């Protein structure tokens, strides 16, 4: 009788502990889901801002005059700067890509 009573108590405790564990897991997942959703919204906002900035920087009204007058130092400078600063890395990366 004591064994049966003990087993019943243990079973009840196990069920309760499992329930608590599942509940905790559920809450954790919900938190993660909320966090991911907010991150997603944040990324969408960031994407919108960067897209806006890209469009502003690439606006024809801003670039056309310089392009038409064949005055391209900005493009040339940034291109050469990238080559000097990232030249070896770019070469390695492109080499890896080529092997793949």
């Amino acid at each position, binding site marked *: 009788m004591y064994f049966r009573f003990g087993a019943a108590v243990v079973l009840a405790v196990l069920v309760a502990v499992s329930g608590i564990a599942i509940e905790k897991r559920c809450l954790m997942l919900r938190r993660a889901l*909320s966090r991911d959703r907010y991150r997603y919204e944040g990324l969408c*906002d960031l994407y*919108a*801002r960067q*897209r*806006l900035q890209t*469009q*502003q920087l*690439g*606006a*024809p*009204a801003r670039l*056309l005059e310089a392009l038409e007058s064949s005055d391209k130092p900005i493009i040339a400078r940034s291109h050469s700067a990238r080559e000097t600063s990232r030249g070896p890395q770019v070469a390695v990366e492109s080499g890896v890509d080529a092997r793949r």
Partner: protein
Amino acid sequence: MAAEPLDPLLPEPAEEANAESTAGPRPRGQSAQIRRRRGVIVAVISLCSLAVAARLIQLQVIQSARLAERGTRQKSYVEALPAPPGDLLDRNGRVLATSVVSRSLFVVPEKISDPWPSAQRLGRALHLDPDRLCDRLQSEKKFTWVKRRLTAEDEQAFRALGLPAAAWGLRDEYVRRYPQGALAAHILGLRDVDGNSRGGLEQSLEAVLRGCPGRRTLYRDARGRVIDVPDDTDIPPRPGRSVVTTLDSIIQVYAERELDRVVAEWRPHGVCALVEDPSTGEILAMASRPAFDPNRPEGVSEDAWMNRAIAWTYEPGSTFKPFVVAGALERGRVRPDEEIDCAGGETRLASRVFHDTHPYGLLSVADVLVKSSNIGMSRIGGRLSNGELFATIASFGFGRSTGLGLPGEIAGTLRPVKQWSSYSNASLSIGQEVAVTPLQMITAHSALANGGTMTSPKLVLRTLDGSSSADADLPLATPVVSRAADREAARWLVAGPMRDVVLRGTGTRANLPGYSVFGKTGTAQKLDTATGAYSADKYVSSFLCGAPAANPRVIVLVVVDEPSGGSHFGGTVAAPAAAEILRQTLAYLKVAPDDSSGQPHETTAQRPATYFKR
């Protein structure tokens, strides 16, 4: 261990028995008192139980629904989720208008105990006037904006103040941005600080761009802190649909740049330019000056809000003449090889005297247009009855809206025949007594360039989602095609007289090497409202041109209102700007040069038989 008595006033039964056996029977008065006390206690407990039961019934049965609703209301909070408006794009996908999230700061004035110090601190942090801010903080309101559209620096400075959390909040709002700056501002319109559309495509496409706001339910504790966000109550916002316009940003830049040059050189009252593909009616560029930057609409002059291409009318003058000739040719009232007597430069029609800038004798129909003879045109128009002339003008779309769909477009003025005077026929033949918008004018010339078939102008290509149901919401994208003029007459006019206008007429400044440019100048006196007569010093100068003449790809119209730089002729003021826009556009669209000579191919007398076979 003896059990404790339930009631300390009642003795234990055993004790009672012992007491009775040892001390004899209890006095009658004492036992009655005990019974009375017991009855009182039972009655009090019963009454309390009844009261509790009654209250429970009241709360859980009678007021159940109302209280449940009240509890839910206190616990839950429905938050509106704004929908981002759709983007406006040019035909190549460049963003003309888009929305980004911006934070706005509000406060709850009733929870601010020290308005003046708070106003001073907020004013310093956010660069606001503390006095005005203090007035708002002293109100009894539960909500007031402090500053909309905070920058990152603003937000950082504000957070550093450490105001009590219950007294303020930040709300996300969508703010409209125009990455191309002032480019095409009149076409796009703008959205105010509350997101309401004001003018342009923003207003006319509001139903498509707007989207549908969503909502989210939040559960809060007694202190107002959010404790749960149930997913099942979420209605996500539906973003507005993005719309692709017919505009090309590059061509728009060409047009606006030329307008700026015209403004600098001729200091006009206003100026506008239009670039259109005549075969499809697609507006490639539409610009107006003065203009404004939709990103900074504060302090813009009233003149700058008007889109002169659609919301301003003028008497077109000579650019109107080809339509009258087209009508006369179509009805057989004049032959292309016919010569018209131009009366030596002056003639009287009814009570009005008509002049030409130079005295001409006999001119061919083509030369009447090339030399822009008013007398010759009045003679050609006179061969049409008033009804026929009206029908001809109306068939080119004058006197009614083009259907472009931009708010503020006006229909112009074309009076019914019964209101015409004895010289209205002659006046209309030279582009007077009719008020047109620049958009109507370029649409009508597109019909000539398109072989007499008029396609309604359009500014909208499609929505980005591309579904047919979505496009059904875009009536502006639906073209209307009609027959405006005889095909042969239209082709002859464009490739013949209008080509010669550029080669040897009034528009020689628009001749582009390599391209067979056609065009027509217009120099119209403005009506002086004070005297009721035509002004001697106020003109509207215009020029319309297109190329290639055999198969026009682009036509351009530039209209200059009251130039004041010394000249007022359309061929001098407007033609160079229109030609430059045309040149750049043809090169940008990679239209192959089609004319290497740049000279008239044959004499005017020979051309009709070649171009026009009736």
